Protein backbone atom coordinates (compact mmCIF):
# COMPACT_ATOMS: atom_id res chain seq x y z
CA UNK A 1 0.00 0.00 0.00
CA UNK A 2 2.68 2.46 -1.13
CA UNK A 3 4.82 1.56 1.88
CA UNK A 4 2.50 3.41 4.17
CA UNK A 5 2.06 1.95 7.66
CA UNK A 6 -1.27 0.51 8.70
CA UNK A 7 -3.39 2.11 11.34
CA UNK A 8 -2.31 -0.45 13.92
CA UNK A 9 1.33 0.10 13.11
CA UNK A 10 0.67 3.77 13.53
CA UNK A 11 -0.12 3.22 17.16
CA UNK A 12 2.88 1.05 17.90
CA UNK A 13 5.40 3.07 15.96
CA UNK A 14 9.08 2.68 16.56
CA UNK A 15 11.26 5.72 16.93
CA UNK A 16 13.03 5.85 13.57
CA UNK A 17 13.90 9.41 12.86
CA UNK A 18 13.45 12.62 14.76
CA UNK A 19 11.71 14.82 12.23
CA UNK A 20 9.04 16.16 14.52
CA UNK A 21 11.38 16.13 17.48
CA UNK A 22 13.69 18.26 15.38
CA UNK A 23 10.86 20.62 14.62
CA UNK A 24 9.97 20.76 18.31
CA UNK A 25 13.54 21.34 19.36
CA UNK A 26 13.97 24.02 16.73
CA UNK A 27 10.87 25.62 18.17
CA UNK A 28 12.38 25.31 21.62
CA UNK A 29 15.69 26.71 20.42
CA UNK A 30 13.86 29.57 18.79
CA UNK A 31 12.01 30.17 22.01
CA UNK A 32 15.09 30.23 24.14
CA UNK A 33 16.74 32.60 21.69
CA UNK A 34 13.87 34.95 21.21
CA UNK A 35 11.10 33.81 23.44
CA UNK A 36 11.90 35.51 26.70
CA UNK A 37 13.11 38.61 24.90
CA UNK A 38 10.01 38.58 22.77
CA UNK A 39 7.77 38.30 25.80
CA UNK A 40 9.55 41.15 27.56
CA UNK A 41 9.47 43.44 24.54
CA UNK A 42 5.86 42.59 23.91
CA UNK A 43 4.86 43.37 27.46
CA UNK A 44 6.74 46.67 27.35
CA UNK A 45 5.13 47.46 24.04
CA UNK A 46 1.69 46.84 25.50
CA UNK A 47 2.34 49.17 28.38
CA UNK A 48 3.91 51.91 26.28
CA UNK A 49 1.40 51.85 23.47
CA UNK A 50 -1.58 50.58 25.41
CA UNK A 51 -2.41 47.96 22.81
CA UNK A 52 -4.83 45.24 23.67
CA UNK A 53 -4.65 43.25 20.46
CA UNK A 54 -4.53 39.51 20.57
CA UNK A 55 -0.85 39.55 19.62
CA UNK A 56 0.05 41.70 22.58
CA UNK A 57 -2.11 39.55 24.81
CA UNK A 58 -0.04 36.61 23.62
CA UNK A 59 3.11 38.47 24.58
CA UNK A 60 2.32 38.11 28.29
CA UNK A 61 2.11 34.34 28.28
CA UNK A 62 4.43 32.06 30.26
CA UNK A 63 7.20 30.60 28.11
CA UNK A 64 5.97 27.06 28.80
CA UNK A 65 2.53 27.98 27.45
CA UNK A 66 4.11 29.45 24.32
CA UNK A 67 5.93 26.16 23.91
CA UNK A 68 2.68 24.21 24.25
CA UNK A 69 0.96 26.50 21.76
CA UNK A 70 3.75 25.95 19.24
CA UNK A 71 3.54 22.21 19.75
CA UNK A 72 -0.19 22.35 19.08
CA UNK A 73 0.50 24.55 16.04
CA UNK A 74 2.72 21.89 14.46
CA UNK A 75 -0.08 19.35 14.81
CA UNK A 76 -2.56 21.84 13.35
CA UNK A 77 -0.18 22.52 10.41
CA UNK A 78 0.01 18.78 9.85
CA UNK A 79 -3.75 18.37 9.79
CA UNK A 80 -4.47 21.52 7.76
CA UNK A 81 -1.92 20.60 5.10
CA UNK A 82 -3.17 17.01 5.05
CA UNK A 83 -6.82 17.91 4.46
CA UNK A 84 -6.00 20.71 2.02
CA UNK A 85 -3.82 18.47 -0.11
CA UNK A 86 -6.45 15.73 -0.03
CA UNK A 87 -9.18 18.13 -1.12
CA UNK A 88 -6.99 19.34 -4.00
CA UNK A 89 -6.02 15.83 -5.09
CA UNK A 90 -9.49 15.21 -6.49
CA UNK A 91 -9.24 11.64 -5.24
CA UNK A 92 -12.05 11.87 -2.69
CA UNK A 93 -15.74 11.43 -3.34
CA UNK A 94 -19.11 11.45 -1.63
CA UNK A 95 -19.51 12.13 2.06
CA UNK A 96 -15.73 11.97 2.56
CA UNK A 97 -15.13 14.74 0.03
CA UNK A 98 -17.76 16.87 1.77
CA UNK A 99 -16.34 16.23 5.24
CA UNK A 100 -12.82 17.11 4.13
CA UNK A 101 -13.96 20.51 2.92
CA UNK A 102 -15.38 21.34 6.35
CA UNK A 103 -12.64 19.80 8.47
CA UNK A 104 -9.89 21.29 6.28
CA UNK A 105 -11.42 24.74 6.58
CA UNK A 106 -11.58 24.31 10.36
CA UNK A 107 -7.96 23.21 10.71
CA UNK A 108 -6.85 26.11 8.53
CA UNK A 109 -8.78 28.45 10.80
CA UNK A 110 -6.99 26.91 13.79
CA UNK A 111 -3.60 27.44 12.15
CA UNK A 112 -4.45 31.05 11.42
CA UNK A 113 -5.52 31.68 15.02
CA UNK A 114 -2.36 30.15 16.48
CA UNK A 115 -0.14 32.10 14.09
CA UNK A 116 -1.90 35.37 14.85
CA UNK A 117 -1.52 34.82 18.57
CA UNK A 118 2.10 33.71 18.47
CA UNK A 119 3.24 36.26 15.88
CA UNK A 120 6.99 36.07 15.35
CA UNK A 121 7.22 33.30 17.94
CA UNK A 122 5.17 30.93 15.82
CA UNK A 123 7.15 27.98 14.45
CA UNK A 124 7.35 27.94 10.66
CA UNK A 125 5.16 25.57 8.68
CA UNK A 126 7.07 22.33 8.06
CA UNK A 127 7.24 20.78 4.61
CA UNK A 128 5.02 17.73 4.35
CA UNK A 129 5.34 14.84 1.95
CA UNK A 130 2.21 12.73 2.38
CA UNK A 131 3.51 10.13 -0.04
CA UNK A 132 0.26 9.52 -1.84
CA UNK A 133 -1.90 9.09 1.25
CA UNK A 134 -3.90 12.18 0.27
CA UNK A 135 -4.52 10.73 -3.17
CA UNK A 136 -6.44 7.56 -2.40
CA UNK A 137 -9.63 7.50 -0.35
CA UNK A 138 -9.12 4.46 1.90
CA UNK A 139 -5.51 5.30 2.91
CA UNK A 140 -6.62 8.89 3.38
CA UNK A 141 -9.40 7.97 5.79
CA UNK A 142 -7.22 5.54 7.71
CA UNK A 143 -4.66 8.28 8.24
CA UNK A 144 -7.28 10.91 9.02
CA UNK A 145 -8.66 8.69 11.78
CA UNK A 146 -5.17 8.28 13.21
CA UNK A 147 -4.38 12.00 12.99
CA UNK A 148 -7.58 13.09 14.69
CA UNK A 149 -7.28 10.53 17.48
CA UNK A 150 -3.69 11.72 17.85
CA UNK A 151 -4.72 15.38 18.09
CA UNK A 152 -7.27 14.52 20.77
CA UNK A 153 -4.64 12.64 22.78
CA UNK A 154 -2.14 15.45 22.35
CA UNK A 155 -4.43 18.21 23.57
CA UNK A 156 -5.53 15.98 26.44
CA UNK A 157 -1.95 15.33 27.41
CA UNK A 158 -1.06 19.01 27.48
CA UNK A 159 -4.17 20.52 29.08
CA UNK A 160 -3.16 19.93 32.71
CA UNK A 161 0.26 21.49 31.99
CA UNK A 162 -1.12 24.78 30.75
CA UNK A 163 -0.47 27.59 33.18
CA UNK A 164 -2.58 30.44 31.82
CA UNK A 165 -6.35 30.11 32.13
CA UNK A 166 -6.92 31.95 28.86
CA UNK A 167 -4.74 29.39 27.07
CA UNK A 168 -6.51 26.52 28.83
CA UNK A 169 -9.90 27.91 27.82
CA UNK A 170 -8.72 28.01 24.21
CA UNK A 171 -7.23 24.53 24.35
CA UNK A 172 -10.34 22.79 25.70
CA UNK A 173 -12.52 24.51 23.10
CA UNK A 174 -10.36 23.07 20.32
CA UNK A 175 -9.78 19.69 21.97
CA UNK A 176 -13.49 18.83 21.85
CA UNK A 177 -13.71 19.90 18.20
CA UNK A 178 -10.86 17.55 17.33
CA UNK A 179 -12.78 14.79 19.09
CA UNK A 180 -15.81 15.52 16.89
CA UNK A 181 -13.51 15.30 13.87
CA UNK A 182 -12.16 11.99 15.12
CA UNK A 183 -15.64 10.55 15.42
CA UNK A 184 -16.54 11.91 11.97
CA UNK A 185 -13.56 10.35 10.23
CA UNK A 186 -14.15 7.05 12.01
CA UNK A 187 -17.76 7.04 10.92
CA UNK A 188 -16.70 7.67 7.30
CA UNK A 189 -14.09 4.94 7.52
CA UNK A 190 -16.70 2.53 8.83
CA UNK A 191 -15.48 1.96 12.39
CA UNK A 192 -17.11 2.94 15.65
CA UNK A 193 -16.78 6.67 16.37
CA UNK A 194 -16.37 6.20 20.12
CA UNK A 195 -14.73 3.01 21.29
CA UNK A 196 -14.17 3.60 25.00
CA UNK A 197 -15.91 5.47 27.79
CA UNK A 198 -12.68 7.31 28.53
CA UNK A 199 -10.19 8.65 26.00
CA UNK A 200 -6.58 8.44 27.10
CA UNK A 201 -4.03 11.26 26.93
CA UNK A 202 -0.67 10.83 25.21
CA UNK A 203 2.66 12.31 26.13
CA UNK A 204 4.58 14.54 23.77
CA UNK A 205 7.21 11.86 23.41
CA UNK A 206 4.63 9.39 22.20
CA UNK A 207 3.04 11.87 19.79
CA UNK A 208 6.46 12.84 18.42
CA UNK A 209 7.38 9.20 17.89
CA UNK A 210 4.21 8.45 16.00
CA UNK A 211 4.44 11.50 13.77
CA UNK A 212 8.13 10.90 13.11
CA UNK A 213 7.39 7.33 12.11
CA UNK A 214 5.19 8.51 9.26
CA UNK A 215 8.11 10.38 7.66
CA UNK A 216 5.62 13.01 6.60
CA UNK A 217 7.78 15.89 7.75
CA UNK A 218 10.62 16.43 5.28
CA UNK A 219 13.12 19.16 4.58
CA UNK A 220 12.13 21.98 2.32
CA UNK A 221 13.38 21.58 -1.27
CA UNK A 222 16.00 24.27 -2.01
CA UNK A 223 15.27 25.61 -5.46
CA UNK A 224 17.87 28.39 -5.50
CA UNK A 225 21.52 28.04 -6.39
CA UNK A 226 24.59 30.07 -7.20
CA UNK A 227 25.64 28.06 -10.22
CA UNK A 228 26.37 29.84 -13.44
CA UNK A 229 23.52 29.44 -15.92
CA UNK A 230 24.16 27.22 -18.94
CA UNK A 231 20.99 28.05 -20.82
CA UNK A 232 20.92 28.60 -24.53
CA UNK A 233 21.10 32.33 -23.96
Amino acid at each position, binding site marked *: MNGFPHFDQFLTAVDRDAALAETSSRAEAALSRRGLLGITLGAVGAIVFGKTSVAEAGAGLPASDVDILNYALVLEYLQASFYTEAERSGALSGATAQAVKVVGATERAHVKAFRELLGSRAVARPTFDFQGVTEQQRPFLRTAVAFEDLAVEAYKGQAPKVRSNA*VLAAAVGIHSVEARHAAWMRELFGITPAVNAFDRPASRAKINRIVASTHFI*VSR*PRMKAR*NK*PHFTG
Partner: protein
Amino acid sequence: MRHGTRLAAAITAATFVGLLLAGLGVSHREKSIATATGFAALPPAPAPVLKVGRPKMLSGERYVSRWTVVRRPTAAHAAPSASSVVVARLGVSAPEGTPNLLAVLRARTGAGGALWVLVRLPVLPNGTVGWVSRRSLGSYQVVKTHLVVDRRRLQATLYQNGKSVFTAPVGVGTAVAPTPAGDFTIRSKLTRYASPFYGPVAFGTTARSAVLTDWPDGGFIGLHGTNQPGLIPGRISHGCIRMRNEDIVRLSRLMPVGTPLAIR
Protein backbone atom coordinates in the same frame (compact mmCIF):
# COMPACT_ATOMS: atom_id res chain seq x y z
CA MET B 1 -10.77 41.88 67.89
CA ARG B 2 -8.29 44.36 66.59
CA HIS B 3 -8.04 44.83 62.79
CA GLY B 4 -5.78 46.98 60.66
CA THR B 5 -7.85 49.31 58.52
CA ARG B 6 -6.97 47.55 55.30
CA LEU B 7 -7.98 44.17 56.68
CA ALA B 8 -11.16 45.71 58.01
CA ALA B 9 -11.84 47.07 54.55
CA ALA B 10 -11.19 43.68 53.01
CA ILE B 11 -13.50 41.88 55.41
CA THR B 12 -16.25 44.38 54.93
CA ALA B 13 -15.68 44.17 51.21
CA ALA B 14 -16.36 40.47 51.48
CA THR B 15 -19.60 41.25 53.20
CA PHE B 16 -20.54 43.56 50.36
CA VAL B 17 -19.92 40.81 47.87
CA GLY B 18 -22.24 38.78 50.03
CA LEU B 19 -24.83 41.52 49.92
CA LEU B 20 -24.48 41.68 46.16
CA LEU B 21 -24.78 37.97 45.74
CA ALA B 22 -27.58 37.69 48.24
CA GLY B 23 -29.89 38.73 45.46
CA LEU B 24 -28.69 35.72 43.46
CA GLY B 25 -29.81 33.40 46.19
CA VAL B 26 -26.28 32.42 47.14
CA SER B 27 -25.24 32.51 50.75
CA HIS B 28 -21.74 33.71 51.17
CA ARG B 29 -19.08 32.77 53.67
CA GLU B 30 -15.53 34.00 53.88
CA LYS B 31 -13.74 30.72 53.52
CA SER B 32 -16.14 28.12 52.17
CA ILE B 33 -17.62 27.73 48.76
CA ALA B 34 -21.21 28.89 48.46
CA THR B 35 -23.63 26.11 49.31
CA ALA B 36 -27.34 25.77 48.43
CA THR B 37 -27.73 25.80 44.66
CA GLY B 38 -24.23 27.13 44.61
CA PHE B 39 -23.48 26.99 40.91
CA ALA B 40 -23.41 30.77 40.77
CA ALA B 41 -20.21 30.69 42.80
CA LEU B 42 -18.41 28.87 39.98
CA PRO B 43 -16.70 31.50 37.84
CA PRO B 44 -17.44 31.51 34.14
CA ALA B 45 -14.63 30.46 31.85
CA PRO B 46 -12.23 33.26 30.90
CA ALA B 47 -12.05 34.51 27.33
CA PRO B 48 -9.92 32.08 25.32
CA VAL B 49 -6.58 33.46 24.21
CA LEU B 50 -7.07 32.20 20.65
CA LYS B 51 -9.47 34.04 18.38
CA VAL B 52 -10.55 31.41 15.88
CA GLY B 53 -12.08 33.02 12.80
CA ARG B 54 -14.76 31.63 10.56
CA PRO B 55 -13.49 28.62 8.60
CA LYS B 56 -13.08 29.39 4.92
CA MET B 57 -13.42 27.01 2.02
CA LEU B 58 -10.57 26.83 -0.48
CA SER B 59 -10.90 29.49 -3.14
CA GLY B 60 -9.14 30.38 -6.34
CA GLU B 61 -8.51 26.70 -6.91
CA ARG B 62 -8.51 27.08 -10.69
CA TYR B 63 -5.27 29.04 -10.30
CA VAL B 64 -3.59 26.29 -8.30
CA SER B 65 -0.65 24.48 -9.89
CA ARG B 66 1.27 21.75 -8.13
CA TRP B 67 4.89 20.72 -8.42
CA THR B 68 7.17 18.16 -6.90
CA VAL B 69 10.77 17.04 -7.13
CA VAL B 70 12.33 13.75 -8.10
CA ARG B 71 13.28 12.03 -4.86
CA ARG B 72 15.16 9.10 -6.35
CA PRO B 73 16.24 8.25 -9.90
CA THR B 74 13.29 6.84 -11.75
CA ALA B 75 11.67 6.18 -15.10
CA ALA B 76 8.70 7.96 -16.57
CA HIS B 77 6.32 5.63 -18.41
CA ALA B 78 3.80 6.15 -21.17
CA ALA B 79 1.03 4.64 -19.01
CA PRO B 80 0.53 4.21 -15.24
CA SER B 81 2.23 0.85 -15.25
CA ALA B 82 5.81 -0.27 -14.76
CA SER B 83 5.51 -2.53 -17.76
CA SER B 84 4.64 0.24 -20.23
CA VAL B 85 7.17 2.00 -22.45
CA VAL B 86 9.76 4.17 -20.76
CA VAL B 87 9.47 7.70 -22.04
CA ALA B 88 12.35 9.22 -20.10
CA ARG B 89 14.73 8.57 -17.25
CA LEU B 90 14.82 11.15 -14.48
CA GLY B 91 17.62 11.94 -12.08
CA VAL B 92 17.29 13.90 -8.84
CA SER B 93 18.98 17.05 -10.13
CA ALA B 94 18.42 19.53 -12.92
CA PRO B 95 21.53 20.50 -14.90
CA GLU B 96 21.72 23.78 -13.00
CA GLY B 97 22.30 21.84 -9.78
CA THR B 98 18.90 22.29 -8.16
CA PRO B 99 16.38 19.49 -7.43
CA ASN B 100 14.69 18.12 -10.53
CA LEU B 101 11.31 19.88 -10.45
CA LEU B 102 8.30 18.44 -12.24
CA ALA B 103 4.82 19.88 -12.68
CA VAL B 104 2.15 17.52 -11.30
CA LEU B 105 -0.88 17.05 -13.51
CA ARG B 106 -2.86 14.26 -11.90
CA ALA B 107 -2.57 10.90 -10.15
CA ARG B 108 -4.04 7.50 -10.80
CA THR B 109 -4.07 4.21 -8.95
CA GLY B 110 -2.63 1.52 -11.18
CA ALA B 111 -3.02 -2.22 -11.10
CA GLY B 112 -2.03 -3.61 -7.71
CA GLY B 113 -2.95 -0.41 -5.92
CA ALA B 114 0.24 1.52 -6.68
CA LEU B 115 -0.08 5.26 -7.17
CA TRP B 116 1.20 6.85 -10.40
CA VAL B 117 1.52 10.57 -11.08
CA LEU B 118 1.32 12.23 -14.49
CA VAL B 119 4.05 14.87 -14.78
CA ARG B 120 5.42 17.21 -17.41
CA LEU B 121 8.82 15.99 -18.56
CA PRO B 122 11.78 18.27 -19.33
CA VAL B 123 12.53 16.33 -22.54
CA LEU B 124 12.15 16.73 -26.30
CA PRO B 125 9.76 16.96 -27.91
CA ASN B 126 8.55 19.81 -25.71
CA GLY B 127 5.23 19.03 -24.04
CA THR B 128 6.02 15.39 -23.35
CA VAL B 129 4.30 13.97 -20.27
CA GLY B 130 4.77 10.67 -18.48
CA TRP B 131 3.72 8.60 -15.48
CA VAL B 132 6.06 8.34 -12.53
CA SER B 133 5.69 6.20 -9.40
CA ARG B 134 4.53 8.34 -6.47
CA ARG B 135 7.24 6.78 -4.37
CA SER B 136 9.92 8.39 -6.52
CA LEU B 137 8.57 11.86 -5.92
CA GLY B 138 8.80 14.26 -2.99
CA SER B 139 6.38 16.64 -1.32
CA TYR B 140 3.72 18.45 -3.32
CA GLN B 141 4.07 22.24 -3.40
CA VAL B 142 1.41 24.66 -4.59
CA VAL B 143 1.64 27.96 -6.44
CA LYS B 144 -1.15 30.27 -7.55
CA THR B 145 0.89 32.25 -10.03
CA HIS B 146 1.41 31.68 -13.72
CA LEU B 147 3.68 33.41 -16.24
CA VAL B 148 2.64 33.99 -19.84
CA VAL B 149 5.21 34.93 -22.47
CA ASP B 150 3.70 36.27 -25.68
CA ARG B 151 6.23 35.88 -28.51
CA ARG B 152 4.19 37.95 -30.90
CA ARG B 153 3.75 40.94 -28.59
CA LEU B 154 7.20 40.39 -27.01
CA GLN B 155 5.73 40.69 -23.55
CA ALA B 156 5.78 38.70 -20.33
CA THR B 157 2.88 38.87 -17.84
CA LEU B 158 2.75 37.34 -14.38
CA TYR B 159 -0.68 36.48 -12.97
CA GLN B 160 -1.46 35.89 -9.31
CA ASN B 161 -4.83 34.24 -8.64
CA GLY B 162 -5.75 35.14 -12.20
CA LYS B 163 -4.92 38.81 -11.77
CA SER B 164 -2.09 40.48 -13.70
CA VAL B 165 0.55 41.69 -11.22
CA PHE B 166 3.57 42.22 -13.49
CA THR B 167 4.25 42.90 -17.10
CA ALA B 168 7.47 43.68 -18.99
CA PRO B 169 8.91 43.62 -22.52
CA VAL B 170 11.07 40.64 -23.44
CA GLY B 171 13.60 39.48 -25.98
CA VAL B 172 12.95 36.02 -27.46
CA GLY B 173 14.71 33.68 -29.89
CA THR B 174 15.48 34.44 -33.49
CA ALA B 175 13.82 32.63 -36.37
CA VAL B 176 16.81 30.32 -36.54
CA ALA B 177 16.85 29.53 -32.84
CA PRO B 178 13.31 30.22 -31.72
CA THR B 179 11.84 30.17 -28.21
CA PRO B 180 9.53 27.13 -28.26
CA ALA B 181 5.79 27.41 -27.64
CA GLY B 182 4.10 25.27 -25.00
CA ASP B 183 3.46 24.71 -21.30
CA PHE B 184 6.50 24.59 -19.05
CA THR B 185 7.58 25.31 -15.52
CA ILE B 186 9.99 27.71 -13.83
CA ARG B 187 12.19 25.19 -12.07
CA SER B 188 15.14 27.02 -10.50
CA LYS B 189 16.41 30.42 -9.49
CA LEU B 190 20.08 31.27 -9.93
CA THR B 191 21.70 34.29 -8.33
CA ARG B 192 25.13 35.64 -7.39
CA TYR B 193 26.90 34.02 -10.29
CA ALA B 194 29.30 36.36 -12.06
CA SER B 195 27.98 36.69 -15.59
CA PRO B 196 26.69 40.04 -16.86
CA PHE B 197 25.36 38.32 -19.96
CA TYR B 198 22.66 36.70 -17.82
CA GLY B 199 22.06 39.74 -15.61
CA PRO B 200 21.54 39.61 -11.83
CA VAL B 201 19.13 36.66 -11.71
CA ALA B 202 18.32 33.78 -14.03
CA PHE B 203 15.42 31.32 -13.86
CA GLY B 204 15.72 27.83 -15.23
CA THR B 205 12.76 26.41 -17.11
CA THR B 206 11.77 22.97 -18.35
CA ALA B 207 11.56 24.27 -21.94
CA ARG B 208 14.21 23.14 -24.42
CA SER B 209 15.43 24.46 -27.70
CA ALA B 210 14.24 22.21 -30.48
CA VAL B 211 17.19 23.20 -32.65
CA LEU B 212 20.14 23.57 -30.28
CA THR B 213 20.01 19.96 -29.26
CA ASP B 214 23.75 19.59 -28.89
CA TRP B 215 23.99 22.49 -26.49
CA PRO B 216 25.90 21.79 -23.23
CA ASP B 217 23.51 20.77 -20.46
CA GLY B 218 20.78 19.97 -22.95
CA GLY B 219 19.90 23.31 -24.46
CA PHE B 220 17.43 24.47 -21.91
CA ILE B 221 15.61 27.77 -22.24
CA GLY B 222 16.26 30.23 -19.43
CA LEU B 223 14.56 33.42 -18.32
CA HIS B 224 17.20 35.93 -17.37
CA GLY B 225 18.53 39.49 -17.30
CA THR B 226 20.87 41.02 -19.86
CA ASN B 227 23.83 43.30 -20.49
CA GLN B 228 22.21 44.48 -23.73
CA PRO B 229 18.94 46.06 -22.60
CA GLY B 230 18.74 48.09 -25.81
CA LEU B 231 17.88 44.92 -27.70
CA ILE B 232 14.67 44.45 -25.70
CA PRO B 233 12.02 44.03 -26.97
CA GLY B 234 13.28 42.02 -29.94
CA ARG B 235 13.92 38.62 -31.51
CA ILE B 236 17.53 38.34 -30.56
CA SER B 237 18.38 35.33 -28.46
CA HIS B 238 19.24 31.64 -28.90
CA GLY B 239 15.89 30.80 -27.44
CA CYS B 240 16.14 32.26 -23.94
CA ILE B 241 13.64 34.82 -22.72
CA ARG B 242 15.55 37.96 -21.83
CA MET B 243 14.35 40.80 -19.64
CA ARG B 244 15.86 44.13 -18.64
CA ASN B 245 17.62 43.73 -15.33
CA GLU B 246 15.31 45.97 -13.32
CA ASP B 247 12.33 44.02 -14.66
CA ILE B 248 13.66 40.60 -13.81
CA VAL B 249 14.59 41.74 -10.33
CA ARG B 250 11.01 42.96 -9.89
CA LEU B 251 9.70 39.66 -11.24
CA SER B 252 11.92 37.67 -8.90
CA ARG B 253 10.14 39.21 -5.93
CA LEU B 254 6.74 38.04 -7.20
CA MET B 255 7.34 34.72 -8.89
CA PRO B 256 8.10 31.57 -6.88
CA VAL B 257 9.95 28.64 -8.40
CA GLY B 258 7.39 26.13 -9.63
CA THR B 259 5.31 28.77 -11.41
CA PRO B 260 3.89 27.40 -14.67
CA LEU B 261 5.18 29.10 -17.80
CA ALA B 262 3.01 29.33 -20.91
CA ILE B 263 4.90 30.41 -24.02
CA ARG B 264 2.65 31.44 -26.83
